[in-house]
């Protein structure tokens, strides 16, 4: 057993070129062979996007976990453990896990209203019309493109750190590898391979975490070094950890779940009676793996590790290099490649579904989609998206600004999206203006376009208080009645106001995120209350149907179903 020593001067252990190539080729080769098991000469467009709408519990839960664990999950969770100590990993992994939990009641509602949907934007179009659909589709497209780029970047970084191969070589191998097994069968291949990738990831995590713990000195090391933690780091209820990590992430959880097509796709693919068990299991699985790997950050803090170049993303590779034997490092390599690949293939499937349904099916095809043409659009989308992902990853762009923007867009659409499927007065105008106003005020606060002082600061803090009420209300509404949710939301907003005013302006990330929720909800409710529109939710199932029936385009049937649907039906065509 190696002893715990400070590692400032430690170099990364490197796998040989042949070992790294063998691992990568073996991983992507096996995944490709696996995808051949389900390949069909003639793919069905609906199957390409959401399988058979009846995937079983094991595959769907595994796919949900594998998709939501991406390379950044490990690094961010470990960073949280390193920065905030005992509670750090919980403030990353727990809230990420709860995201899956809180979305499932809303997901069941979406599925109940539109059982044959392919994308959430498609359902939004059937509910509101094209402008709302485009807001949703564009936010999904940008989000998935960024996710793809981040995952390819992580592949390049991993390969360049742990092997003699270059960053670009790593990006190219990951891009080609993921595309090779996803291109032909789309979402079906993604779900199928997710299972195998998740097995590899969990087995690796189950071996790596205890191995590093005991090699670093085990319980004796823990007890000897606990005194090195600051008061905040040794406090399970650290206010610093809550305000800087937990609360902003907590606010973002619903936004991520609503704004990401990968979740919606799995929601529409799983057998309807298995939605609850699937999402509950995914909550536990995601939390366990991500919090567990976050513990490596806590261990790094305890052993006195100093991240090389001050880069927090080096924490896990440094811990692996120092405390794992070569076999363990190979496992770690597979763990990261598995996590980034399972998310990247889901992003490709999500992007293709959005382009197939929301760009081609609902707009370019003018209501008469040709299934073969639609499939062509899906596959071309995957190829183009992979090329863009590889190019942008190779450029090593700073994606922080894009992530911030997409996060805001997602935060701004959460309330309008959810409430659109419960309240029949919400109109297209209410949806669109709510999002526009929320994004504008978010940007003002996030980038401090005006100084957050005096009356302006108070204004944003009041908006943020309302936003807090909205978040609490929505989360309550997931499991309780509307009246309880409204009462909880109002109470949370009122109780928080004395604490937020004069205080929250120092936490701009949290302030701006909550502002997006508060403004979108306020504008949406205000415009909806003045609306005379009363939407019949039964129309959604009529308007959102399969594209492919016995090799015949279903446009004729779909056209008949929407006859008489008024303005919204016209918007759909």
């Amino acid at each position, binding site marked *: 057993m190696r002893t715990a020593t400070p590692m400032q001067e430690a170099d990364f252990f490197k796998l040989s070129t042949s070992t790294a190539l063998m691992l990568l080729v073996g991983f992507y080769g096996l995944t490709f062979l696996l995808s051949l098991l389900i390949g069909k000469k003639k793919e069905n467009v609906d199957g390409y996007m959401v399988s058979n709408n009846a*995937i*079983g519990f094991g595959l769907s839960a595994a796919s949900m976990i594998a998709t939501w664990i991406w390379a950044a999950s490990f690094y961010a969770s470990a960073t949280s453990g390193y920065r905030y100590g005992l509670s750090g990993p919980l403030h990353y992994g727990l809230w990420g896990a709860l995201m899956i939990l809180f979305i499932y009641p809303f997901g069941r509602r979406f599925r109940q209203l539109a059982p044959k949907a392919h994308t959430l934007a498609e359902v939004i179009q059937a509910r509101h019309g094209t402008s709302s659909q485009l807001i949703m589709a564009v936010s999904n497209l940008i989000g998935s493109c960024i996710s793809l780029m981040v995952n390819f970047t992580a592949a390049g970084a991993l390969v360049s750190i742990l092997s003699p191969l270059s960053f670009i070589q790593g990006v190219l191998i990951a891009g080609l590898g993921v595309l090779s097994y996803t291109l032909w069968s789309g979402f079906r291949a993604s779900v199928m391979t997710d299972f195998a990738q998740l097995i590899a990831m969990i087995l690796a995590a189950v071996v790596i975490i205890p191995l590093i713990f005991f090699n670093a000195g085990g319980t004796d090391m823990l007890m000897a070094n606990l005194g090195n933690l600051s008061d905040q780091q040794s406090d399970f209820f650290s206010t610093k950890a809550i305000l800087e990590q937990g609360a902003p992430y907590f606010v973002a959880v619903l936004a991520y779940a609503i704004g990401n097509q990968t979740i919606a796709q799995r929601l529409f693919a799983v057998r309807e009676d298995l939605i609850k068990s699937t999402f509950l299991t995914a909550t536990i699985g995601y939390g*366990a793996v991500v919090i567990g790997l976050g513990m490596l950050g806590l261990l790094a803090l305890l052993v006195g590790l100093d991240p090389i170049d001050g880069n927090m993303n080096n924490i896990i590779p440094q811990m692996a290099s120092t405390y794992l034997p070569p076999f363990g490092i190979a496992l770690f390599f597979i763990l990261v490649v598995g996590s980034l690949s399972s998310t990247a293939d889901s992003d490709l499937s999500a992007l293709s579904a959005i382009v197939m349904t929301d760009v081609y099916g609902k707009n370019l095809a003018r209501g008469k989609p040709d299934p073969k043409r639609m499939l062509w659009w899906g596959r071309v989308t995957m190829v183009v998206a992979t090329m863009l992902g590889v190019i942008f990853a190779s450029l090593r762009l700073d994606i922080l600004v894009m992530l911030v923007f997409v996060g805001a867009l997602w935060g701004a659409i959460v309330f309008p999206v959810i409430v659109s499927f419960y309240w029949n007065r919400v109109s297209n105008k209410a949806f669109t203006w709510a999002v526009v106003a929320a994004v504008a005020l978010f940007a003002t606060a996030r980038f401090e376009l005006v100084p957050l002082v005096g009356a302006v600061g108070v204004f944003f803090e009041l908006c943020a208080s309302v936003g807090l009420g909205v978040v609490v209300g929505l989360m309550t509404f997931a499991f309780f009645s509307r009246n309880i949710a409204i009462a909880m939301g109002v109470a949370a907003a009122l109780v928080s106001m004395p604490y937020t005013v004069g205080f929250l302006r120092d936490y701009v990330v949290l302030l701006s995120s909550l502002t997006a929720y508060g403004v979108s909800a306020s504008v949406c409710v205000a415009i909806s209350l003045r609306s005379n529109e009363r939407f019949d939710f039964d129309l959604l199932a009529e308007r959102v149907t399969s594209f492919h029936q016995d090799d015949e385009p279903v446009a004729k049937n779909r056209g008949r179903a929407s006859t008489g649907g008024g303005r919204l039906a016209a918007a759909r065509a």
Partner: protein
Amino acid sequence: MNGFFMTAYILLWPVASAAVLLALIVALVRDMRAARKDGNSMI
């Protein structure tokens, strides 16, 4: 802080991960059997 508690806090997560993995594998095997019996495709 108690050493046993701290050790359990760190090692609890891989144990929970393994339990989830086991549950998923069992569910997959059941689904495969059911699909084979009914002649349906799983995906």
